[in-house]
């Protein structure tokens, strides 16, 4: 470790700053503009560099790590193609508000703008998908820029920040000075909620007969689950969560209503429809949640707490906006709640009737393997204690329905961008961060192929991720829409003839692999996979090909348009 006041070159300063930011892992890939950094890295022992096999993999790994631990994920890639390969991962982290710092090498300052070899204007390219980004123009600016990047990525609403570092900057030297504190005059997020607003919210809550808590990922990033649980239980208010909010409140609690929205539970959506008070915390009224905004929670007085003022009144006009940190909001609310409140038993009884009317179920009568069974069984065998990562598609929605999430930071999934290929690298990243809980991945046969190269990274580093490949031989979610809304024209979604033998693929990478073809063999394979910790293990689950995810509120529809079963039962299996 070097100290402030020493003369260091840019690469040394880079690692000194990462040390001071307590970085454990860098997910990276070398190249021409970063040769100096990798030269310095050769002798760095206290920060572990994980060599990925594609820069997109690095970004998703960093995000998986960040979401599992709450600490920022760090990515290091070279200029040009290395940088452009990070774009999807950066956009993903931006949409899902994950803290991440991406360092890109850049051509030497003197060549910028000349279409130099491996030059790309990555600052320009990533401007709309980063919280902020920087081009370092002087080695004396490097330390403060890195400090700012970590501060911005982790403060307020988290997000990705990119730092572009020209080659000459990394080679030149200056006196190292690490600023302990920083002040960015244009960046002052509001943490503390306005007390009058919170008091008003408390009054509304006390008087509501049919209140509903609508909880998003903001509660998890603000580490506010404890406060949420206390409030919900003390006030006897049912809790519905977004995809990113799952785990903020224990899924096995009677007040938990599971997910709302397009593939949310029947009873959560009915409750939204009938509630007289909606308390949104750290959620952003995404279109996958609201459907048609005009008919969303039509009877409810709406309270919305969010750290980002732009989320308030963006998609839906609310009655009581409260800008501030979710933890601060919930804790303050607990302090100012009046003694007396309405009785919610009739409301809870109404909800339970909906729950009984249309529960989440799947057929167990035949010997066919279903995705729901695999997820249900993994949920049981892990006692809801795993860190669950998904890819994008039907299996992702079933995960939200059939895995019982008990704790925050238990689901890591691409919600906002819906990035296929996210799952495998994100699971690997999560497993680097979390060693005392199993890390489980549910991944489609389509999405698995989008970042399959990262299996090497998992094998090489003996990362014990348990991969449940949900193999339905289809781009299942697209097939579902084709069946429901596009005249059953199954255009380019049948992978049956072209999918590889996934067990052989895994084995070629040196990854242990099993096959499951019926519920019984799946149960055993799950047990075996959970017991295996010597590296990754893949279970190729041959599931029913044409299953569909229900309930479903069609895009832009209202709760009354909710589909509960397929329109044409003949298309089954």
């Amino acid at each position, binding site marked *: 470790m070097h100290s402030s006041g020493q003369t260091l070159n840019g690469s040394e300063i880079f690692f000194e700053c990462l040390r001071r930011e307590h970085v454990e892992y860098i997910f990276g890939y070398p190249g021409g503009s970063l040769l100096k950094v990798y030269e310095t890295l050769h002798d760095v022992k206290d920060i572990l560099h994980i060599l990925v096999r594609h820069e997109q993999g690095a970004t998703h790994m960093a995000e998986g790590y960040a979401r599992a631990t709450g600490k920022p994920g760090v990515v290091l890639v070279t200029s040009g193609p290395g940088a452009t390969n990070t774009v999807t991962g950066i956009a993903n982290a931006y949409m899902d508000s994950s803290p991440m710092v991406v360092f890109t090498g850049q051509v030497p300052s003197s060549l910028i703008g000349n279409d130099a070899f491996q030059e790309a204007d990555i600052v320009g390219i990533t*401007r709309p998908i980063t919280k*902020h980004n920087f081009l370092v123009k002087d080695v004396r600016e490097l330390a403060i820029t890195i400090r700012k990047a970590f501060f911005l990525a982790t403060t307020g609403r988290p997000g990705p920040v990119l730092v572009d570092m020209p080659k000459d900057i990394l080679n030149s030297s200056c006196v190292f000075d690490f600023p302990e504190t920083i002040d960015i*005059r244009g960046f002052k997020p509001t943490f503390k909620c306005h007390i009058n607003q919170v008091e008003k919210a408390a009054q509304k809550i006390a008087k509501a007969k049919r209140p509903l808590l609508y909880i998003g990922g903001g509660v998890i990033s603000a580490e506010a689950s404890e406060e949420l649980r206390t409030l919900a239980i003390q006030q006897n208010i049912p809790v519905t969560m977004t995809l990113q909010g799952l785990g903020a409140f224990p899924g096995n609690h009677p007040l938990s209503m599971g997910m709302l929205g397009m593939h949310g539970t029947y009873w959560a959506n009915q409750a939204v429809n009938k509630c007289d008070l909606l308390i949104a915390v750290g959620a952003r009224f995404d279109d996958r949640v609201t459907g048609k905004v005009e008919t969303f929670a039509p009877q409810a007085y709406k309270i919305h707490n969010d750290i980002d003022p732009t989320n*308030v*009144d963006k998609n839906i006009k609310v009655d009581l906006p409260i800008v501030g940190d979710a933890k601060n909001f919930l804790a303050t609310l607990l302090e100012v709640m009046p003694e007396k409140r309405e009785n919610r038993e009739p409301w809870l009884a109404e909800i339970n009737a909906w729950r009984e009317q249309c529960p989440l179920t799947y057929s167990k009568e035949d010997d066919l393997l279903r995705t729901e069974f695999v997820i249900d069984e993994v949920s049981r065998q892990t006692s809801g204690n795993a860190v669950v990562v998904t890819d994008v598609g039907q299996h992702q929605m079933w995960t939200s329905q059939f895995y019982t999430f008990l704790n925050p930071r238990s689901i890591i999934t691409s919600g906002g961008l819906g990035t296929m290929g996210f799952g495998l690298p994100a699971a690997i990243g999560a497993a680097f961060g979390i060693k005392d809980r199993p890390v489980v991945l549910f991944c489609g046969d389509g999405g698995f192929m989008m970042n399959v190269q990262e299996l090497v990274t998992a094998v090489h580093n003996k990362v014990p991720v348990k991969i449940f490949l949900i193999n339905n031989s289809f781009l299942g979610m697209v097939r579902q829409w084709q069946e429901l809304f596009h005249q059953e024209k199954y255009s380019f979604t049948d992978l049956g003839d072209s999918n590889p033998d996934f067990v052989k693929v895994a084995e070629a990478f040196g990854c242990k692999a099993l096959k499951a073809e019926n519920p019984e063999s799946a149960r055993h394979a799950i047990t075996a996979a959970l017991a295996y910790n010597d590296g990754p293990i893949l279970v190729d689950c041959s599931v029913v090909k044409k299953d569909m995810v229900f309930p479903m509120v069609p895009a832009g529809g209202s709760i009354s348009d909710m589909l509960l079963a397929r329109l044409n039962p003949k298309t089954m299996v």
Partner: protein
Amino acid sequence: MKHVISVLVENKFGSLNRVAAMFSARGFNLESISIGETEDTEISRMTIVTRGEDQIISQVLKQLNRLVDTIKVIDLTRQPHVERELLLMTLKLSKAVQHEIFELITVFKGKVVDIKQKSITIEVIGSPEKINTTIDIFRPYGIKELARSGAVAIHRGE
């Protein structure tokens, strides 16, 4: 309705791009944007003219505030403020209309900045509405070229 927004930003490369890109990415209307240094050389002032309903304008203001390089955002619309735009315009010149043109320049308090055998270049300063009228009135005489600066605006002093 029309809004005039004054934004103080860090005087750094890319600040203007961030604002302009945000407007296009979010589909906000952008009628004009102008930027220049302020009394503090580290800070630039941007004047943005946009149109939209209240809910949209409130999003515009919040999205501007959210940019890290933005220091202060002021919607001047409902406050006392002065708004000015500069017009530079080259007109066809002929003996027949020469007199009329000179008279109109006086009416609009314009200035002649260049004059040639067959053309005349004038400058006019005023509110964007006055600039619109000026252009309309001069159009029949034959506008060869024109350039507008976009509005700049500032609070009226106490």
